[in-house]
């Protein structure tokens, strides 16, 4: 899986550029590079549905983020405790990665998944649903409650944006 590791290194470099560069437009473009690399990684990992969805979602995400960077404001002041804060954050991340390295030995190794439920789905999905794309048959038949909840969350998010960005605030009514 050399190509996957190279792609992940590319994504990590893109993420570092996105975090550290000062110009906001460059930062947003670097995030776009990370997202498109993720789409390619999905394609390598044999998930074509996700590759299509991630590609389109990344384009929309870029449009929304560029909309946000139109306001020019660059708070990049270094305060007195810059060194202490950075050091403690890096310490925390090092501890996190160390524990993750210890734990990763116990999950199934890369390339050998435990497919307890998936074996069942793959064997009888065609008879039970009639759909030949198994991802669709999982999200719309076996786990359709999940999709119903997702539709609810999406509805709430749309309502939230409409409420936050409404034209006029509520006026105080005198009694």
């Amino acid at each position, binding site marked *: 899986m050399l190509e996957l590791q190279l792609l992940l290194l590319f994504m990590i470099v893109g993420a570092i550029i996105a975090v550290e560069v000062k110009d906001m437009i460059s930062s947003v473009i670097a995030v776009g590079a990370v997202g498109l690399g993720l789409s390619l990684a999905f394609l390598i990992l044999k998930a074509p549905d996700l590759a299509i969805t991630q590609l389109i979602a990344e384009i929309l995400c870029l449009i929304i983020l560029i909309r946000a960077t139109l306001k020019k404001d660059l708070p990049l002041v270094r305060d007195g405790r810059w060194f202490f804060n950075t050091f403690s954050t890096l310490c925390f991340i090092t501890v996190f990665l160390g524990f993750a390295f210890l734990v990763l030995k116990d999950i199934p190794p890369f390339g050998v998944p435990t497919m307890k439920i998936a074996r069942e789905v793959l064997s009888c999905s065609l008879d039970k649903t009639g759909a*030949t794309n198994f991802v669709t048959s999982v999200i719309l038949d076996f786990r359709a409650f999940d999709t119903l909840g997702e539709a609810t969350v999406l509805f709430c998010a749309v309502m939230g944006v409409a409420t936050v960005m409404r034209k006029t605030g509520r006026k105080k009514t005198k009694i």
Partner: protein
Amino acid sequence: MIKNDKKEVGMTLIVKTITRLTVGLILLFGIYIVLHGHISPGGGFAGGLIIALSFIHLMLAFGREAALKRLSEAKAAILESVGALLFLIIAVLGFTGGYFFLNFINKGKPFNLFSAGIIPLCNIAIAIKVGVGLFSIFIVLVILQEDRKE
């Protein structure tokens, strides 16, 4: 299609011409992805995003009026509720045979367009919901903010 009257809205002539050629194809591709979701990669989520992207493409190139003339805010609000309710109605209709989300229509032959029972109908409902929902997020983020300034 769109007349350039006194005030220049949207982007330059090159962008407008290319958009005029491609926006219909993008919409058609989205509908194709939705309808073939159960036999090939794709489905309601990807297709709905592509449909939303075609309208946003139109809005970015021609300005806000051109997109709002085809799908106004009120219509978008109604359509989004219709998508959600359609999905719920399909789910509740499963009670005719026994339980929630029962695949109650005949399965048909695999690899045909009309197969797999309720899955294509659910795909269509989700595509309406996701596409119109993201388009209305975009309307709200871009247009209402502009209105406030004027």
